[in-house]
C-alpha cells in the first residue's frame, strides 16, 4: 500500500517531534535554492539529479534535492554552537532511469553541529534513527569514508597522485583506473608516451581560454609523474584489502587494526571507528551484528567524509534506503567562509516507512 500524502505528513510530523524532544531546533529552508552553490559542490552531475528552473532576476534555481546544504549554510552564517536541527518537508529528485522512483518525497532529518565528541555525535544520530525505525524489517550498514581517505593520504607516492586519487574517491571506477595507472599495472597510453618522448607537435593555432602556459605546465607535470616511482604492488593490495572489509563491527575492527600495522597512516581513522563503536554500544546498539562496509557510501553524494550509514528493507531490494546519513566536516569548511565545525546528520523517508509498515 502506498500511503497518502496526509498520512506521510502526519508520520513526518511525529518523527520530527522525536528530534525536537532531543532539543533540536526546527528549520525550514526555502524549496528554491541558488543553483550556483549546488553546482559548485557537485558539478554537472547534480543536473541529472535536481530540477533546475530559472528567472531573469535570480538566474538558475534548483528545487532542493536535499536539506543538508541549506542547513549547513544557515548554520555557518549565523548558528550558535553546539546546535541540533530538525526538519521535515519535500525534496525533489529528477529521475531519468527508473520511472518507479519518486521524483518528490518527504524527508525528515536531524543534523548535529558539535565539536565536543564526534564519536558520541555519530552514535547519537545513528541511534535516534535506529530507534525511530524499530519495528520495521530494515538492516543497517555502516562505513567510514575517512579510513579510505587516510589510506590514500598515507600512500608512499607524490602529493599530486594522492590529490588525484582523493578527487576521485567517490568515483570508484575512476579511482581504480588511476591506481592501476600509478602502480604501473596499466600501460601508459601510446599518445602520452609519444607526448613525453617529445613526438607530439601541432601546427594548429591555439584557440580558447586555456593558455599555452597551461598546456606546458601539464606536460611538465606529466613528465614529473612519469619520472616518479610506481606505487608498490604491496600498497595497492593494502588499499584493496581495506575496500574488501565487509563484516560485523568487531571483526571489521580487528581487520582494520591488522591493516593499520602495515598502513600506519590509517591508525587515527581506525581509532575513530573504534571510538564510534564504543559510543554506539553506550547508546544501546548491538555492534556484534552491525555491518561495517569499508567501501560503503562511495557512490552517494560526495559530501560525506567520515561515518556513513544507511538502512534498507531486506524484503524490498527495489526500494531506496529508508534512512541514510553521515559525517560531513569538509562540507562545513567549504560552505563556511573560513569557519568549520564537525557535523553529522541523517534523514528518513516517512513515506517508505509507512509502505513497509503496511506490508509487514
Amino acid at each position: 500500500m502506498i500511503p497518502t500524502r496526509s498520512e506521510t505528513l502526519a508520520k513526518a510530523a511525529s518523527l520530527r517531534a522525536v528530534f525536537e524532544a532531543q532539543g533540536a531546533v526546527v528549520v525550514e529552508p526555502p524549496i528554491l535554492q541558488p543553483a550556483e552553490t549546488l553546482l559548485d559542490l557537485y558539478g554537472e552531475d547534480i543536473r541529472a539529479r535536481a530540477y533546475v528552473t530559472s528567472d531573469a532576476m535570480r538566474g538558475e534555481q534548483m528545487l532542493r534535492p536535499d536539506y543538508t546544504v541549506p542547513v549547513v549554510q544557515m548554520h555557518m552564517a549565523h548558528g550558535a554552537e553546539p546546535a541540533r536541527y530538525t526538519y521535515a518537508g519535500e525534496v525533489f529528485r529528477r529521475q531519468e532511469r527508473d520511472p518507479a522512483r519518486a521524483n518528490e518525497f518527504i524527508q525528515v532529518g536531524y543534523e548535529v553541529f558539535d565539536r565536543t565528541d564526534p564519536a558520541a555525535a555519530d552514535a547519537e544520530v545513528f541511534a535516534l534513527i535506529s530507534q525511530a525505525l524499530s519495528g520495521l524489517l530494515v538492516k543497517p550498514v555502516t562505513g567510514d569514508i575517512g579510513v579510505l581517505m587516510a589510506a590514500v593520504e598515507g600512500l608512499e607516492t607524490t602529493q599530486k597522485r594522492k590529490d588525484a586519487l582523493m578527487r576521485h574517491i567517490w568515483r570508484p571506477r575512476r579511482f581504480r583506473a588511476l591506481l592501476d595507472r600509478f602502480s604501473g599495472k596499466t600501460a601508459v597510453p601510446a599518445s602520452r608516451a609519444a607526448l613525453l618522448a617529445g613526438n607530439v607537435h601541432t601546427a594548429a593555432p591555439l584557440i580558447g581560454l586555456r593558455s599555452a602556459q597551461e598546456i606546458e605546465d601539464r606536460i611538465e607535470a606529466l613528465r614529473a609523474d612519469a619520472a616518479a616511482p610506481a606505487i608498490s604492488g604491496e600498497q595497492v593490495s593494502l588499499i584493496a584489502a581495506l575496500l574488501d572489509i565487509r563484516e560485523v563491527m568487531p571483526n571489521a575492527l580487528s581487520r582494520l587494526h591488522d591493516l593499520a600495522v602495515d598502513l600506519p597512516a590509517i591508525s587515527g581513522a581506525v581509532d575513530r571507528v573504534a571510538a564510534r563503536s564504543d559510543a554506539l554500544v553506550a547508546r544501546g546498539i548491538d555492534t556484534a551484528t552491525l555491518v561495517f562496509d569499508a567501501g560503503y557510501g562511495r557512490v552517494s553524494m560526495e559530501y560525506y567524509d567520515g561515518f556513513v550509514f544507511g538502512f534498507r528493507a531486506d524484503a524490498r531490494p527495489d526500494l531506496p534506503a529508508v534512512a541514510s546519513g553521515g559525517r560531513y566536516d569538509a562540507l562545513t569548511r567549504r560552505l563556511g567562509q573560513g569557519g568549520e565545525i564537525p557535523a553529522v546528520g541523517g534523514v528518513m523517508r516517512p513515506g517508505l516507512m509507512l509502505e513497509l509498515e503496511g506490508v509487514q
Partner: protein
Amino acid sequence: MTIRLGVPSKGRLMEKTFEWFAARGITLQRTGSDREYAGAVGGIEGVSLMLLSAGEIPRELAAGRIHLGVTGTDLIEEKLALWDQLVLPVEELQFGHADLIVAVPAAWRDVDTLDDLDAAAAAFRARHGFRLRIATKYHRLVREFLRSAGVADYALVDSQGATEGTVKNETAEAIADITSSGETLRANHLKILSDGLILKSQATLWRSRTAEMNDTERTTLAALLGKLS
C-alpha cells in the same frame, strides 16, 4: 483509421527518406505548397504521412501519436529517457550518418583521452576559478557519457547551433557535437578525443511501442513492414 508515419519535414533528410521508401515501392510526397506540411502516401492503402521536425519525431513516437517515424539515433537517445521501452528500431536507413563526439582544441597537445580531459579540467578549474565548459545541445547523452567515464570539474553550456565556434569565441573550452566528416571540426582547429565517441547515429525507422492499433491497422502495419524490410 490509418497507420501514421512521421518523416522529417525538410532538407536532405526528407529527400533521402522519400528515396528510401520509393526504392521499396512506397511513394511519399508532399502535397500542397512547399510551406505546407501535409503529405500523401502511394503504393499502400491505409497509411498517412505526417511531416514533422526531426527533433519532434522522438516525442511523437513516445506519445504514440505516430506509429512509425524516421529520425536519428542521437535524437531518440537524447530526448527519450528509457528509449528502448518506448520505441523499437525497425530498419537503419544507411544515410544521415553522424557521430556524437567530444572535441577539444587541436593545439592541446597534452589532451588525447578522456583521462587527459579530466586532468586538464581539474587544473583549469584551479587556475580559472570555474569549471571547464563544454558546449553542446546533447546535454543528457554527454553528461551520462562523461559521468560513466569519471570526468569531473566540467560544466555543460547550451549551444543550439554553430557549436564549433564556441571555443574560438571563448564561451566554451571544448565541445560535444554531431560530426559526419570532421571537416567543420578541422576548419575550427578542433580535434576529436581518441576515446571521445559518445554515439554513432544514422537515420533510422522507428516503431512506437505505445501507439494503439485496431485489427485493420495491425494488418496495414504488417503489410507496410513487409514491403520495407
